[in-house]
């Protein structure tokens, strides 16, 4: 009798966790421990944010094995294995408690360093600012670029205005209108995105502002640019709608309605693509068509994902709304 209870007491002492402290193992994806002996989290600070702050301060003190960089929170990605076998790992999102993810004493959290991060607004600014310098260069410095002095035609002048208006609008929206669900992205994206926007600005501008550029008829130029401008305003309207979808502090997806959204999930992309379409009608340049197609290809992918996400969430069950039948991005095709 007393020996049994003594044995039971010993077993209980071995496996009882310290009062008020949770121990968690932090490992890399290849299974290597980042903190020797595991990570201690006081129960009253068992939130994802507190965990991130602790990892950050440990990285500054160089106490993390195999990690030399400063791991500020936006660089950290922590996941726990999926509940079902073969499912995707579940990321621990900031703003929640560890208990929301069922992270208990003895849990294993997988850690990934996302690399140097840069803010969305910073990236958007630089990728949109470049074209404002690059495109006008071919027009305004045409004598130096093409080696020939000439007077630009109407199409070339309107194209310059349209292009600059487009990117100025984008910069304004970035700082005044858009809110971002993720604050940062990997720094490599800055170079990739800037190459895309700056590169195409140069390519389109070179051919449209060329001395041997052949303009379509003035009527066509004026009408098409007028329609393109209307599309830009339409695009702005859709952005205003999207910005006002969520009240401050509200989270989660909502169904956009009104104006183009009654028929198309990504009406903002629709107006964007049609804007460039009319730009091409007005300027008739192959490079402009290539630029529009490249952008359209990417937007079609994004629209497909957004459409699928909204349809999955608003499935009409358990009191949720059913997502209305809509085009994804380009009626009447997709």
């Amino acid at each position, binding site marked *: 009798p007393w020996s049994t209870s003594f044995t039971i007491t010993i077993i209980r002492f071995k496996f009882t966790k310290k009062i008020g402290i949770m121990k968690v193992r932090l490992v890399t994806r290849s299974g290597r421990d980042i903190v020797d002996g595991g990570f201690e989290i006081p129960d009253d600070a068992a939130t994802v944010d507190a965990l991130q702050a602790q990892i950050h301060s440990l990285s500054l003190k160089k106490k993390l094995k195999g990690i030399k960089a400063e791991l500020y929170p936006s660089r950290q990605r922590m996941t726990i294995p999926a509940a079902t076998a073969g499912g995707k790992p579940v990321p621990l999102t900031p703003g929640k408690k560890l208990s929301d993810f069922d992270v208990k004493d003895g849990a294993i959290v997988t850690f990934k360093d996302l690399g140097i991060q840069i803010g969305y607004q910073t990236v958007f600014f630089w990728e949109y600012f470049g074209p404002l310098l690059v495109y006008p260069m071919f027009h305004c410095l045409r004598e130096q670029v093409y080696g020939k002095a000439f007077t630009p035609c109407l199409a070339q002048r309107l194209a310059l205005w349209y292009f600059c208006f487009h990117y100025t609008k984008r910069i304004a929206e970035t700082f005044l209108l858009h809110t971002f669900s993720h604050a940062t992205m990997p720094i490599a994206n800055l170079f990739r995105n800037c190459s895309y926007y700056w590169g195409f600005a140069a390519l389109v501008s070179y*051919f*449209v502002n*060329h001395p*041997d*550029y*052949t303009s379509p008829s003035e009527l066509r130029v004026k009408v098409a640019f007028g329609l393109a401008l209307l599309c830009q305003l339409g695009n702005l309207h859709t952005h205003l709608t999207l910005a006002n979808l969520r009240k401050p502090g509200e989270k989660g997806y909502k169904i956009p309605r009104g104006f183009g959204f009654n028929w198309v999930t990504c009406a903002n992309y629709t107006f964007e693509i049609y804007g460039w379409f009319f730009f091409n009608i007005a*300027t*008739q*340049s*192959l*490079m402009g068509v290539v630029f529009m197609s490249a952008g359209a290809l990417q937007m079609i992918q994004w629209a497909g994902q957004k459409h699928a996400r909204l349809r999955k969430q608003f499935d009409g069950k358990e009191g949720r709304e059913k997502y209305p039948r809509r085009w994804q991005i380009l009626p009447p095709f997709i």
Partner: protein
Amino acid sequence: RNSLLTSPLVQLSARMGFLKSAYLLAYNISLVIGWSYILFEAVIEWKANGPLGVFIAVRKSLEIAQTAAVLEVVHSALGVVRSPVVTTFLQVVSRIAILWGVLIAIPFDSRTAEIVLYNDASVKVALSTGTMIVAWSLSEIIRYSFYAFKELGFVPYPVEWLRYSGFVVLYPIGVASELTMIYCGMPHMKNNGMYDLVMPNAFNFAFNYYIALLIGTSVYLPGFPKLYFYMLAQRKKVLAAKSKVA
């Protein structure tokens, strides 16, 4: 009642799986034979007349074997093989661009030129179509044999070792030789103006082959070290795992 194992759907997919394997095996073996023949012709020509005439000697077989690689992009796009479409496409496009876009499109200097790296009384080291074609053939023979064995289900260690080690020497020689071809052919392109599209025209677009080659090469060049180090890392992973198991 049909059991699950003999149900028509399972039988059909088993038959399809077998057909796919048989097709891929045939494809890979044909290309091993094709490239072996090219290597054979190249060596014969080199021994007889030196490396500069190799391209002209192997041209017909090379056109067939290298262009057949386009099928690999199709295989990848259809999901017949598991490699990513974009990577396969880029690899095949670069080879096709060199073969059709430089060697065949530029009739003269690129085909018979060489860049001499080292020359003294006894030995001469130079990059030419000879070195390029030998490097290409050896790489392709190794690669296609590897894939053929994979279809058979068993890859002998020497083949696997060659697959993950051959590139260390063959890839730099191949790329350096390709760049030699481009470099030697470009002056001809600049003066000739073949394949050029000038403005004014209805597309408001101009194309200059010389500039296109410049842009293409400047995009191709930085890719090489990146790819090389990626393959070195792959090599470490695969061959280290093998030695651990052994």
